[in-house]
C-alpha cells in the first residue's frame, strides 16, 4: 500500500525527466544539454538546501503538524554563520573558527526549533499558529542581530574565505543532502522514534491511549526541523558568500511542496523520506528545464502551482480506487 504511493511519485519523476530530455535544448556539439553531467549536478546542488529542509519537514508533517518558520530560521542561521566566521579571532585555526560558527548556527537553530516544539506540545497551540508567529519573530531576530545588513563572507585568505571555499563545492553540498537524507530515511523507517512519529500523525488520540510519549516526540520533530534548517543555513551562507537576514523567504512553501509532491499526506501518518527526495528532485528538474527553455520566471511559479495540485490530485485519486 505504501509502496504503491512511492511508485507513483517515482513514476512522476521519471515522467518529468523524460519530458525534460525531450524538450531540452541541444548544444552545438549535438549533446542534450539537460543530460550533461554538469547540468545534472547543478540541479542536485540547487535543490540541496530545500531538500535538507524538506527532509525535516517530512517528520513534522508526518505528525500532522507544520513548520512555517523554516525560511526565517534559515536566514537566522546564515547570519550567525556570517557573524561568527568573520569575527577576528587571532590564534585559532580556520578550522576551529569554522567549527565554532557551524556549531553556533546549527545549535541556535535547533534551540529555536525546540522552542517551537515546546510551545506546540506543552501549551497545545496549533502548529500553524506557533510556527507562523515564529516565522515572523525569528525573521525579526535575524534582522536585529545583523542590523539588517548582509555579512559578506570574503574571498581573501581568512577563515571566512576558507570556510566558503571548502563548503561551496558541489560535492560537499550535495553530499550533505545525500548523507542527511540517508540518515533520516533510516531513522524514520527503522527506529522506534520513527514509528512513533507516524503513529502520532495517524491517530494522536489512539497514540495517547497506547501510552506513547507524545510530548517528547513532538518536541523532537520541531527541534529536528530547526537543526536541519540550521545545517541548510550554513550551506546556504557558503554558497552565497553571505549571511543574509532576508534569505529564505517562502522557502517553507518550497519545502512543503516537495514533501507533498513526494506523497506525504498533510493529514499525517503516511509518507516517507524517499518520497520527499523524489518530490525535491521533481521540483528541481522542473525548475531546471523551465530555465533551460528560458521560460519567464513568473510562469515558473504558475507551473509549480499546477504541479503541486496535480501531484496531490493524482495521489488522492489512486487512494480512492
Amino acid at each position, binding site marked *: 500500500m505504501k509502496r504503491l504511493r512511492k511508485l507513483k511519485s517515482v513514476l512522476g519523476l521519471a515522467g518529468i525527466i523524460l*519530458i525534460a530530455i525531450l524538450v531540452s535544448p541541444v548544444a552545438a556539439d549535438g549533446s542534450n544539454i539537460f543530460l550533461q553531467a554538469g547540468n545534472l549536478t547543478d540541479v542536485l546542488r540547487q535543490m540541496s538546501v530545500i531538500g535538507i529542509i524538506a527532509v525535516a519537514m517530512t517528520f513534522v508533517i508526518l505528525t500532522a503538524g507544520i513548520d512555517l518558520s523554516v525560511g526565517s530560521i534559515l536566514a537566522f542561521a546564515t547570519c550567525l554563520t556570517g557573524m561568527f566566521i568573520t569575527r577576528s579571532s587571532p590564534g585559532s585555526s580556520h578550522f576551529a573558527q569554522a567549527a565554532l560558527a557551524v556549531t553556533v548556527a546549527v545549535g541556535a537553530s535547533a534551540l529555536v526549533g525546540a522552542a517551537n516544539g515546546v510551545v506546540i506540545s506543552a501549551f497545545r497551540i496549533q502548529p500553524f499558529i506557533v510556527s507562523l508567529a515564529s516565522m515572523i519573530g525569528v525573521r525579526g531576530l535575524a534582522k536585529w542581530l545583523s542590523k539588517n545588513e*548582509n555579512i559578506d563572507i*570574503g574571498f581573501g585568505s581568512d577563515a571566512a574565505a576558507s570556510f566558503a571555499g571548502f563548503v561551496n563545492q558541489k560535492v560537499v553540498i550535495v553530499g550533505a543532502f545525500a548523507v542527511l537524507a540517508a540518515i533520516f530515511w533510516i531513522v524514520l523507517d527503522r527506529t522506534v522514534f520513527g514509528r512513533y512519529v507516524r503513529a502520532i500523525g495517524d491517530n494522536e488520540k489512539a497514540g495517547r491511549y497506547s501510552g506513547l510519549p507524545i510530548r517528547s516526540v513532538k518536541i523532537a520533530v520541531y527541534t529536528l526541523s530547526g537543526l536541519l534548517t540550521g545545517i541548510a543555513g550554513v550551506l546556504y551562507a557558503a554558497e552565497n*558568500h553571505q549571511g543574509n537576514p532576508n534569505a529564505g523567504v517562502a522557502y517553507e512553501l518550497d519545502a512543503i511542496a516537495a514533501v507533498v509532491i513526494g506523497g506525504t499526506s498533510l493529514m499525517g501518518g503516511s509518507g516517507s523520506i524517499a518520497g520527499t527526495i523524489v518530490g525535491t528532485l521533481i521540483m528541481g528538474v522542473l525548475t531546471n528545464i523551465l530555465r533551460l527553455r528560458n521560460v519567464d*520566471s513568473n510562469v515558473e511559479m504558475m507551473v509549480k502551482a499546477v504541479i503541486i495540485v496535480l501531484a496531490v490530485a493524482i495521489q488522492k*485519486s489512486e487512494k480512492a480506487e
Partner: protein
Amino acid sequence: MRLTWVVVGIGLALAGCGGSSGPRKKLVAFSQCNNSEPYRAAQNARLTKLLAAQPDVQLVIADAQQDNSKQIGQIEAFIRQKPDLLIVAPNERAPLTEVMGRAFHAGIPVICLERDIVQPNYTSYIRSDNREIGRMAGQYIVDYLTKKNGAPRGNIVQIRGLLGVEGEINRYEGAQEVLAKYPGIRTVHEAVADWIQAKAKDRMTEALRAEPKIDVVYAHNDPMAVGAYLAAKDLGREKEMIFIGVDGLSGPGGGIQKVADGILAATFVYPLCVDKAVEIGTRILREPGFQPEKVYTINSVMVTPENAARLEKAAE
C-alpha cells in the same frame, strides 16, 4: 489514469514555451536582478529595443526577483546553454561573484552591468560614477545658494536611499567632498527613505516640522525627491526650497519630465549603462579578437529646465 494524460499534455505544452526554431541565432543572455524596479525595467526596455535592430541576435532576460540563489541558478542554466554573450546585473556583490567567475572561465564573454562584484570575474564592467554625480550635485547646490543668498550659505536637507549600497554611499560622499569646503552650507536634516517615494514623503514631513527654513532638498533619487516635494506642497512650503534628485529616467514618470514640469529644479541622469553594453557587446559578438577595456565609466548629465526637452527626445 486521465490525470496522467493531463500531465503529459502539460509537458508537451511546456515544450512549446520559450525558445524558437529556425537558423541558430546568437544568444545574448541577460541576468537581471529585479525587473520590478523602474530603473531596471528601463534597462530591460532599452536593451530589448537596441538589440531588436540586430535580427540575428536572440535576447533572453531572466528575472531573479531580488533572490541571490535564484540568480545563481539562472546563470548556471545560462552557462549550460553556452550563450555568445552573458550580461549580468548582479543582485548583490558577494553571492554572484563565484558563479560569474565560472561563466567567465568557461570562455563565455561576461559583461557586468552597473553593479560591481568582489572579484573582477568579467570581460568588462560598465559602470557610472556615482561619486561624480554626488560632486555634480554638490557643486550645483553651491552655485544655486551663491546665486540665491549672495554667498555660499544655506540650509539643505538630504534624503538618502538604502544605506550600504554603493550608489548611496558615493552620492552622499561625492556631495560631501564639495560641500565640506563651504561651512556656510549646513545639512540641517538627514533622513533615510530606502529609495521609496512614500517613505521620503513621511521623512520630509518630519524635516519640515523640525526646520523653519530650508533652501535645498537633495534626494539621492528622483522618486524620493518627488516625495519630498509632495510633502512640502502639503504644508504649503514648496516654493520656499528647490528639489534635486538623481536618476533622470525618461518617459512620463521619469525625472526628466519632473524637471520639465518644474517639480524638480534639476536631476542627474544615472545612465542605464545599456547603450555602452550593447556597443561593447556587439563588438564582442562580431569582431573576433576584440579586447574591450576592463572598466567603462559612463558620465552623467545634469538635467535642467533648459535641456529637459532635448534630453527627453534623445532618450527615445
